[in-house]
C-alpha cells in the first residue's frame, strides 16, 4: 500500500467514545488510546503568539478589556486543576488495579490525557495574560497568581470529572458569548478558538465519566450530585452573581471571582443548562431537561 493511500484511509481524529467497551473487549491498549489522544491534540493545535498579535489592542472597547481581565485571571486556575487531576488519576488507577483492571485503564487514560489538557489550557492562560499586559489595564499581580494556583482538594473520581465538565460548560458558553459580543476580529478569533478547545475538553471529561459509569463500578449519582450542586437555586452555576461568595481558603473557584462591571454579562445561563443536560446524557446515558428532573434523578439514587 502506498503512503498516499495509507494517509487517505487514516480516520479523522476523534474523542474516542466507548472506552470501557474498547478496553473490556480487548480492542484497544492504553498505547492505542494515547496515540488517538495525540492525534486529536495535534489536529487542533494553534499558535497563541499569532492569534494574540492579530488583536488590535488600540481598538478594544472597555467591555473587551473587562472580558480579557476576567478570563486572564480565571485561566490561572486550570493548571492546578490539571495538576490535581494527574495526581488523583494516578492514585485512583493504583487503587483500582487490584479490583478492576478496566476501570484502572480508563482512569489511566484520563491521567495521560491530562497533559494535553494542561498544555491546551496553558495556551489560553498565556495568551490572555500577555494580552492583558499589552492593554495597560489592571494587571494579574503575583499575589493573585499565587492565590489562584492553589491545588484543588481531592474528591470521588466521577464527581471530579463532572465538576470539570461543569467548568468547561461554563467556559464554552462564556467564550462563545464574548466572541459574539466583541467587534475586534482578532479578539473574536481568539475567543472562538478557546471556546472550541473548552468544548473539546468537556467532551473528553464526559467520555471518561461514561467509561466509569459503563463499568458498573460507579453509579450516575456522582454526576447528578454535581449537576444539582450547580443547577439548584443559588448554586455554583450562578457563581459571582450570587449574593454571597464562599470563603474557601483552600482553592479558588474562578466562577466566583468574575466581575463584569459595565460590560454585558456573557453568562447565557439557559445555554449552560442545556449543555449540562447534554453532558449528563453523554456521561450517564440518562436524559433530563430541567433542574427539577436533575434533582429528582439524583434523589432517586440516594437511599
Amino acid at each position, binding site marked *: 500500500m502506498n503512503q498516499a493511500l495509507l494517509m487517505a484511509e487514516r480516520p479523522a481524529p476523534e474523542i474516542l467514545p466507548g472506552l470501557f467497551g474498547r478496553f473490556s473487549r480487548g480492542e484497544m491498549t492504553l498505547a492505542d488510546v494515547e496515540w488517538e489522544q495525540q492525534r486529536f491534540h495535534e489536529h487542533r493545535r494553534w499558535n497563541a503568539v499569532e492569534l494574540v498579535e492579530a488583536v488590535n489592542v488600540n481598538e478594544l472597547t472597555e467591555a473587551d478589556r473587562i472580558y480579557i481581565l476576567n478570563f486572564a485571571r480565571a485561566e490561572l486556575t486550570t493548571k492546578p486543576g490539571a495538576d490535581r487531576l494527574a495526581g488523583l488519576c494516578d492514585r485512583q488507577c493504583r487503587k483500582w488495579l487490584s479490583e478492576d483492571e478496566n476501570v484502572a485503564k480508563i482512569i489511566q487514560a484520563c491521567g495521560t490525557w491530562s497533559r494535553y489538557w494542561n498544555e491546551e489550557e496553558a495556551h489560553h492562560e498565556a495568551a490572555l495574560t500577555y494580552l492583558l499586559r499589552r492593554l495597560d489595564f489592571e494587571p494579574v499581580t503575583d499575589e493573585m497568581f499565587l492565590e489562584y494556583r492553589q491545588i484543588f482538594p481531592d474528591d470521588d473520581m466521577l464527581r471530579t470529572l463532572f465538576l470539570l465538565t461543569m467548568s468547561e460548560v461554563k467556559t464554552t458558553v462564556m467564550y462563545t458569548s464574548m466572541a459574539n459580543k466583541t467587534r475586534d476580529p482578532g479578539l473574536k478569533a481568539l475567543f472562538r478558538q478557546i471556546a472550541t478547545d473548552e468544548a473539546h475538553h468537556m467532551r473528553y471529561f464526559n467520555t471518561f465519566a461514561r467509561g466509569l459509569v459503563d463499568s458498573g463500578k460507579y453509579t450516575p449519582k456522582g454526576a447528578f*450530585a454535581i449537576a444539582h*450542586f450547580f443547577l*439548584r437555586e443559588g448554586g455554583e452555576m450562578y457563581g459571582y452573581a450570587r449574593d454571597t461568595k*464562599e470563603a474557601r481558603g483552600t482553592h479558588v473557584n474562578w466562577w466566583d471571582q468574575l466581575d463584569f462591571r459595565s460590560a454585558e454579562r456573557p453568562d447565557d445561563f439557559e445555554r449552560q443548562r442545556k449543555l449540562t443536560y447534554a453532558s449528563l446524557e453523554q456521561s450517564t446515558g440518562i436524559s433530563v431537561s430541567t433542574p427539577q428532573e436533575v434533582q429528582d434523578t439524583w*434523589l432517586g439514587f*440516594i437511599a
Partner: protein
Amino acid sequence: MTESAVFAPDLTVAEIVAASPGLVNSVDFMECCAKVANGFRQSHGVQVRLPATSLDTPISVIVESFVQQASSAVAVAQ
C-alpha cells in the same frame, strides 16, 4: 459524629465537613440533606426544597428551614 457534637455547638457546614470522617466536601453534606428530604417524602408525603447553603451556614438554620417547610406542607395538607 454524635448529635450533640453537631448541634450543641451549632456547627457550620464547613465545620461539619471538616470534623466528619465520612464527608469529603459540601457535596456530601448536600447528600445528607437529600436523605432527610427523601425521608420526609417517603414517611409523610411532604416535599422539602433542598436549601443552597453557604459554607458558613450554622446547622440550626438548615434544620429550621426543613422544619418550616415541613410544617407549611402539613398545614396545607390539613
